[in-house]
């Protein structure tokens, strides 16, 4: 199998993009060149004029709900949504039922992805503590053996600092790190949205932004004390950005992600009382939103993740306080983030970098177009304009606040190990 992509803008993830062509042979990238490649016996020639060719994107933060909540999403539908969103690899969070705190769940997930999935590679993040209860460590060594790329209690973050310290140490003996959902559960108790003018106006219980910063500071201090790396999930506040930047200057190996909704929406959006605007961390103030964009530009934030959190309508269509938290993101992240490229706020190179940085963070093969590397490729048509329609999602989840948004730029084709697994049905 030979695929020749020509007349493309090649954006290799590191370094400058350039006009050129790329040859895929079987599951590997055979050649990349700034000129037209001559090759014999090519099965398909793709004229990618106006298209961006990038290493396959990785989403380092998604919820696939499988096992346990397959009515919201399952591994097969989740992987299909990933492919439609341009992701060739996905890291999934452990809040399944049973919780992904044992090798049985990990093996089930990896096997289902391998045998029933579309080819997108699945990398489970194991639970840090048994049952995500924050009491005793999960069998982290065994989770690693089963294929976990990191450990996290995600939405139920460890509050006990002593346990956190020992757990980070323990995980480091197996070469994997703790991924922190930064939240002070005391401060966020009962909260429904960011605390501020809009929570006052809408009369919804507030979550003080300082809770995220407090937790980020604690996690970074732990990492510094132990000399270990740490990853911070979905950064949403200015204060958290400032703290991460501070620890980066101190040489702490802290990496951070944010999600497109923190770049585009603020707590003002909650005025609709649309449960699709309810997410954790909550949508923040305009000042926070601007700071997060700035942090993404200047490298304080390393990656974009989706925090894809599919829910069934019956978990959402409830009184606001009772509605589930979270929004889907896999199929909208690329288009929503491209807005900042079109606005020249971030370069095309930086855009590709933030969607591929996760490979290096978690030691996963990929994120490069170097000759001989795995042919995981995302093709993007940056100028195609379309309207986000939740009913067209391949995810089972329809919970997005972006339904009806007009966007520019779409995933055109997704290739995993040389095989096209998704083509946009224009």
């Amino acid at each position, binding site marked *: 199998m030979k695929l020749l992509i020509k007349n493309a803008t090649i954006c290799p993830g590191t370094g400058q993009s350039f006009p050129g062509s790329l040859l895929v042979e079987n599951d590997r990238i055979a050649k990349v060149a700034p000129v037209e490649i001559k090759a014999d016996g090519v099965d398909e020639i793709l004229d990618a004029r106006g298209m961006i060719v990038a290493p396959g994107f990785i989403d380092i933060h998604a919820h696939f709900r499988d096992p346990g909540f397959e009515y919201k999403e399952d591994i097969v539908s989740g992987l299909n949504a990933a492919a439609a969103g341009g992701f060739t690899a996905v890291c999934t969070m452990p809040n399944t039922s049973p919780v992904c705190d044992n090798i049985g769940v990990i093996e089930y997930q990896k096997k289902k992805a391998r045998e029933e999935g579309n080819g997108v590679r699945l990398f489970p993040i194991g639970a840090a503590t048994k049952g995500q209860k924050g009491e005793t460590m999960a069998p982290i060594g065994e989770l690693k053996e089963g294929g976990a790329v990191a450990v996290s209690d995600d939405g139920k973050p460890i509050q006990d600092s002593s346990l956190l310290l020992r757990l980070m140490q323990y995980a480091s003996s197996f070469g994997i790190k703790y991924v922190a959902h930064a939240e002070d559960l005391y401060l966020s108790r*009962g909260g429904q949205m960011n*605390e*501020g*003018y*809009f*929570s*006052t*106006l*809408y*009369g*919804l*219980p*507030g979550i003080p932004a300082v809770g995220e910063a407090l937790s980020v500071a604690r996690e970074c201090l732990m990492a510094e004390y132990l000399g270990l790396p740490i990853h911070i999930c979905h950064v949403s506040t200015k204060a958290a950005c400032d703290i991460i930047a501070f620890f980066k200057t101190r040489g702490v190996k802290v990496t951070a992600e944010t999600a497109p909704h923190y770049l585009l929406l603020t707590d003002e959006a909650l005025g*609709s*009382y649309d449960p699709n605007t309810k997410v954790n961390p909550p949508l923040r103030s305009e000042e926070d939103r601007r700071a997060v964009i700035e942090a993404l530009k200047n490298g304080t934030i390393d990656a974009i993740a989706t925090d894809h959190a599919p829910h069934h309508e*019956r978990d959402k*269509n*409830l*009184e*606001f*306080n*009772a509605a589930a938290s979270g929004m889907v993101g896999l199929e909208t992240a690329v288009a929503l983030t491209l807005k900042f490229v079109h606005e020249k706020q971030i370069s095309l190179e930086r855009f590709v970098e933030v969607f591929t940085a996760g490979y290096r963070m978690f030691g996963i093969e990929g994120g490069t177009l170097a000759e001989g590397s795995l042919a995981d490729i995302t093709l993007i048509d940056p100028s195609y304009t379309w309207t986000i329609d939740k009913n067209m999602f391949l995810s089972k989840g329809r919970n997005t606040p972006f339904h009806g948004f007009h966007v520019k730029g779409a995933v055109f084709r997704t290739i995993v190990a040389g095989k096209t697994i998704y083509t946009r049905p224009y």
Partner: protein
Amino acid sequence: MKHLLGIESLNRDQIMQILETAVSFEEINQRQIKKVPTLKGISVINFFAEPSTRTRMSFEVAEKRLSADTYNIAVAGSAITKGETLADTALNLQAMAPDCLVIRHAVSGTPHMLAQIMNCSVINAGDGFHEHPTQALLDAYTIKKRKGRLDGLKVALIGDIAHSRVARSNIHLLTKTGSQVVLAGPATMIPRGVEKLGVTVTYDPKEAVKEADVVMMLRIQEERESGLMYPDRREYARFFCLDEKLLSLARPDAIVMHPGPANRGVEIEDDIMDGDRSVILEQVANGVAVRMAVLYLLLGGSNA
């Protein structure tokens, strides 16, 4: 106007129209036979998913005096306790083709959600900490009756602003009509960013009450995480209770208001509550007329 979900979305003219309409309904309430056929054949469901005496009774009285058919649901007796979602309950109520739903709910935004699900008019009878529009309207009606105007007044609003839907609706209404609203309470009870609503904030009730035309006290809401808001009732009363000394700072013709239910001796002293400057029971009386006006304008206004 199809729904009444809050004061924030109303303009000054709409507010004044409701208040003017209420004048004629007040007259009905003073007749020997307090009933008119205005809403005959109109069905109104009063759905109270949170305890209420005054508001619930007031709506029912208003509806019956307009000859509407009224139906009451309390949560304990509804399907919600059997695990049915509110949306499903709403669809079932919708199937019975009511003309209006009056909803009280502990969660902000619930009336807005029901207004999207149901075809009938929805009246917000209090949602979470968000809004209580008919309370603000009856308060405005009472103020206007006593003071002759709604502009240029100094209104002191004292107590738990953070958890008060009454405060939010009153702030929206009184700032729209051109009065000065001064909030006072311990800092824990002043919600973040509230100044942006066009009010002045102080932690000193004396400053708020000074030269005020209206002193409105808010209830200490014991059910809302009160342990995080203030140490105890005794301490709260010592610094924030409206007594003769505090009230003496207001204008001599100032009126005292409270949306009820009041905690005597905590936010308001008995002699003030029962005193001649208190209009607390007038508020209740006016509430019926104002709610009749709202029901009339939403349900019968077009063909009247």
